[in-house]
Every structure is written in C-alpha cells, then in structure tokens.
C-alpha cells in the first residue's frame, strides 16, 4: 500500500507594481481626490471605468469627464458570506452601478440591507477614509439619501465633487 500522500501549505504572492498609463492613472488620481472620471467614446457614450481605447474605433481616448457621486444599480447579487479580501466583511450586495453621467456600469459592493436592494435602486459612493489611488478608494456604495425620490439623481449630478 502506498504511503499516505504528503501535502504542504503553498502560498503564492503577487506583489507587482503596475504602471497605470494616462487614462487609468487619471481615473485613479480622481478616486484619490474623490472624483470619478469617465472616458467619452467616439459614439458619445461615457465609459466608467474608463477605457483607454475606443470600443468601436480603437482610437486612443483622451476626453475624461467627471461623473456624479450617485448612480443606479443595473444588476445585483446578494453575498451572504463574504470571502477573503472582498470589500466588506459583513453581508453585502455585489452591484453594477451606472453612475450619473455614465453609460456603462462599474462593479463594486453595496452596503445595504438585503430587503432594500433592487435593480434600479439609487446608490451613493462611500469613500474610504484613506485613499491612495486605487479602486478600493471607493469603500463601497450605500443607499442614496432620499433614495427613490425622482429628481434626486439630477440634482446630484454636477454637484458631485
């Protein structure tokens, strides 16, 4: 009979520092300063997270526009048991959020009670206290104040920063 097979813990770490390039560099700078930037594509659509090249024409994108601090949930998934390194360690919703002024949606976490979460929900950015220029500078989203009142989104837009 063969001996019991050996096993040992194996930990693989990726400590890489990446160059950010102009567009992602500007986007991450914005997050550090509590401003979310989108990139305007050739078809006029605003992409957030910003793309470096146009999804249609592949042209370099150089027009960045500040977006609102509020947005709309386009889809969600309730995460009852958060896993290591995820944005929150208490139950939360994964969400795709279309920020006001953007035409595409950003993936992040939403800190809200399960019963409150729905597609179309209005949400607001909760900034991390300490920000370094990373997607985690957005700690998570939270229900927008006065959520559901029509017009909130428009008032919020433009007063973002």
């Amino acid at each position, binding site marked *: 009979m*063969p*001996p*019991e*097979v*050996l*096993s*040992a*813990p*194996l*930990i*693989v*770490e*990726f*400590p*890489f*520092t*990446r*160059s*950010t*390039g*102009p*567009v992602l*560099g*500007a986007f*991450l*700078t*914005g997050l*550090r*300063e509590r*401003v979310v*930037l989108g990139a305007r594509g050739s078809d006029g659509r605003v992409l957030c997270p910003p793309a470096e090249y146009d999804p249609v024409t592949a042209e*370099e994108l*150089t*027009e*960045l*526009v*500040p977006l609102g601090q509020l947005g709309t949930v386009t889809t969600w998934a309730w995460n009852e048991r958060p896993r290591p390194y995820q944005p929150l360690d208490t139950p939360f919703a994964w969400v795709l959020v279309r920020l006001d002024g953007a035409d595409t949606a950003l993936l992040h976490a939403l800190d809200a009670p399960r019963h409150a979460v729905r597609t179309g929900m209005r949400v607001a950015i909760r900034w991390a206290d300490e920000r370094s*220029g*990373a997607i985690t500078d957005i700690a998570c989203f939270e229900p927008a104040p006065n959520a559901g009142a029509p017009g909130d989104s428009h008032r919020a837009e433009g007063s973002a*920063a």
Partner: protein
Amino acid sequence: MTTAAELLAGIPELAGVEPVTRVTIPARLEYTYSPGSAQTRFLTALPDKRLLAERCPRCTRVYVPPRGACPTCGIAATEQLELPHTGTVTTFCIVNIAAKGLDVEVPYCYAYVLLDGANVGLHARIGDTPYADVRIGQRVEAVWNEQRLGPSLASISHFRPTGEPDADPESYRRWM
C-alpha cells in the same frame, strides 16, 4: 502619447494634482500542495536516508527524484529501486547572489550530481572543499543533515568529495 497629468489638466477639480502613475495591489493565493504518489514515495524515504528512484520499463532510464512518468517514453516509470549515496558532478556553478527567501550563505557551489545508477542529475550543493577544486567528473557523496531529517530534500545538507579518482567521462557523458 498623452500623460495622466495632461488629461487631468482639463478637469478643474483635478488640475495640478499629483497624478497616480503606479499602483501596487498585492494578491495572495493559498494552496495545499500535494506532490502526487511518486514524489511522495521519494520524499517519505528521505528521513531514513534512502534515495528512491524509478526505472522506465521501456528505455530503462532511471529517474531521481521520480515523477511517475518517463518523459522520454511518456509511460509510467513503474519499477522502483534504491540508489547509493554516491555520484558524479556533471556540471556546477558558484552562486554569489543570495536568492530571496533561501537560507543559504553565499557564495555556494550549486551542482548536478549524477547518482550512481541514475540517468538524470540531482540538484545539490557541493561543500567541505574549496570551490576552486570542484570539477566535472568529481566523485561525491551525500552528507545528511542530521538535525533536519524529514520528507524534504533539505535532509541532504550537501555532497562532499569522496577522494576517489574522477569518473570516466564515458560513464556520465550522455547524462550531462
């Protein structure tokens, strides 16, 4: 090409702020590594100072450490055998740069030792001799690490010269 600073200059809230140019986001993945059956047999014999190998039934090559397959024939190397603790240096180098996380003092001599009866060199260090004397063809023997005997190649501290005459090059030429 545009820079982040140029892109930010066009945005009133962000004009002039120090741009982010790099981001470090460390990631850590945890695994439980298992070496499989053949290498388990090899590793579990090391605390008993035994060197287990496998022979390919087709080409008769002997592999140590065994990996369960003959890479030449692509078949299971099914025949088990035990090798002596002596061998021949088939190549070596002197390492002067310390590898991160490796607790070995530099400089050290890193070599392939073709154990007697094997057809593939074992990675090993050469010690107990001036490095200037280390040479291809030199006869060496294993020095066991009595304090660290376990299911790991660290059970072998290093190889040291036996003092025998050098091996006939024909005995190792094909397996360098």
